[in-house]
């Protein structure tokens, strides 16, 4: 069993390394300006992003992701709780939610520019926030609906005021599901950032990608793609760590009841 475990761990490390080595060998063999060597890309990555252009292009992108995501969380939870609690609100709002969440985001890129008269932060944040909203909103609604009605009725019969009921009962009970929606939205935020900056912008990681493509600077282009991959991965990992800390009570409780 331990040998099997050792084999698993070594495979887990060996396969990615083998892929990277194959990439390097392949690009050396190809010797094409379109496909620069992996080592060249990595050097370019360090020169561009660590940290000479970091403030100029990475910070604006992160800022847009951060504000858009935060807006989506606030609006999604604030709307999701009343919608989840009331049947009528659900009947009224579901047709709209179903329509907008099925809308392919790039179809609204030109509209966001026309409507907001901006290709700057205002438009980017609104675009990111709008499409990050739906996973959070839908998960909040589901989370609130899944609460045992006896709990709510008990709180009500003890005359717990409405805002206290929401703060102490509804919100904590729906928190794990809200977190699941937020996790989907984090990955979505990176995608929306790239889409909106790639369409029209004056700064940001997507802008660098666009400009280097248009000017046939292939090594910076690869470095930008690599950075977007790393950003997506790191944000996801960061979120998982934060979630594990904030919802520690929930996991602990589940482990205790399972035992």
């Amino acid at each position, binding site marked *: 069993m331990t040998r099997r475990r050792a*084999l*698993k*761990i070594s*495979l*887990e490390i*060996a*396969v*990615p390394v083998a*892929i990277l080595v194959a990439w390097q060998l392949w690009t050396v063999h190809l010797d094409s300006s*379109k496909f620069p060597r992996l080592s060249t890309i990595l050097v370019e990555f360090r020169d561009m992003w660590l940290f000479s252009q970091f403030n100029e292009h990475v910070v604006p992108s992160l800022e847009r992701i951060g504000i858009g995501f935060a807006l989506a969380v606030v609006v999604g939870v604030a709307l999701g709780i009343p919608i989840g609690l009331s049947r*009528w609100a659900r*009947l*009224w*709002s579901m*047709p*709209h939610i*179903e*329509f*907008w*969440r*099925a*809308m*392919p*985001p*790039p*179809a*609204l*890129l*030109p*509209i966001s*520019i*026309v*409507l907001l*008269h901006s290709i700057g932060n205002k438009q980017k944040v609104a675009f990111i926030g709008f499409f990050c909203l739906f996973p959070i909103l839908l998960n909040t609604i589901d989370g609130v609906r899944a609460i045992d009605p006896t709990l709510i*009725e008990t709180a*009500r*019969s003890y005359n717990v005021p409405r805002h206290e009921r929401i703060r102490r009962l509804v919100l904590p009970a729906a928190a794990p599901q809200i977190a699941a929606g937020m996790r989907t939205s984090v*990955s979505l935020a*990176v*995608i929306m950032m*790239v*889409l909106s900056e*790639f*369409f029209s912008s004056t700064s940001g990681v*997507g802008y660098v*990608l*666009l400009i*280097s*493509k248009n000017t046939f600077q*292939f090594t910076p*282009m690869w470095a*930008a*793609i690599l950075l*977007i*991959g790393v950003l*997506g*991965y790191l944000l*996801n990992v960061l979120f998982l760590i934060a979630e594990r800390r904030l919802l520690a009570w929930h996991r602990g409780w589940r482990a205790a009841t399972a035992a």
Partner: protein
Amino acid sequence: MAVGEVATPRLVVAGERRQIRLVEPLVFVLSIASALAFWEVVSRTGLISATDLPAMSTTFNELWSLMQTGHFWWSFADTVRGWALGLTIAALLAVPTGILLGSSELAASAFRIPIEFLRPIPSAALIPLLFLTLGTNLKSEVFLATFGAFWPLLVQTMYGVRDVDPVAIETARSFGLGPFERLYRITLPSSVPYIVTGLRISSGVALILAFTAELFMGTKGLGQLTNAAYSFGLETEVYALALATGFLGLAIHLLFTALERRALRWHPSQRLEAA
């Protein structure tokens, strides 16, 4: 609601049900009608100027006249083709790979890191690469749609295969079923719920990426029409095309939700809801 009502919820529900059946469609229609009216009013009163937000009636008129043209329907068909090809190829690749990675712990751990790294990469970041390699044509569009749709399906299939009841597998083994028969009779049917859910998620992603390819690379379809209308400053047409794309997205979403429900009729999670 008074506290006393809690004691007799079932009786109340039974009586209310007929009433609700009538009220529900009414609220549905009212809600959509009032949103459309709101849109009309916001634009007509100049709260948002008509050049920024054409009125609802103007936009639907534009959509209607677009729908009289063959050009619109060809583009529509192009988008649907890119979507369908992307989703199909993704399914053909992801389901077998998922079964393989789901049933072998060694294979799963070997590819864990590459998958974890590739999965969150926004597919839009690959567009510049496609310019260089496949060019601005259907191949690029299908590649992009396939790439996006592949990951949710792969992960869902892996989960589904891992969730197969080991007792069922062992039982089949002790009855002398070979590996292929076990795959066909046990592993596949019990992972179908996960795979169908993956298909639903991927169907949306594939449409987004087909449209993205058209918008950014100019491959034929609704996305390319949208980009052209935007470049020429035809705002009303941009809005009309967004509506058309939204309806296509909604149709796909509803179709695959229905498919999911149908495929899962036998599954306990659905039985509870139906009861």
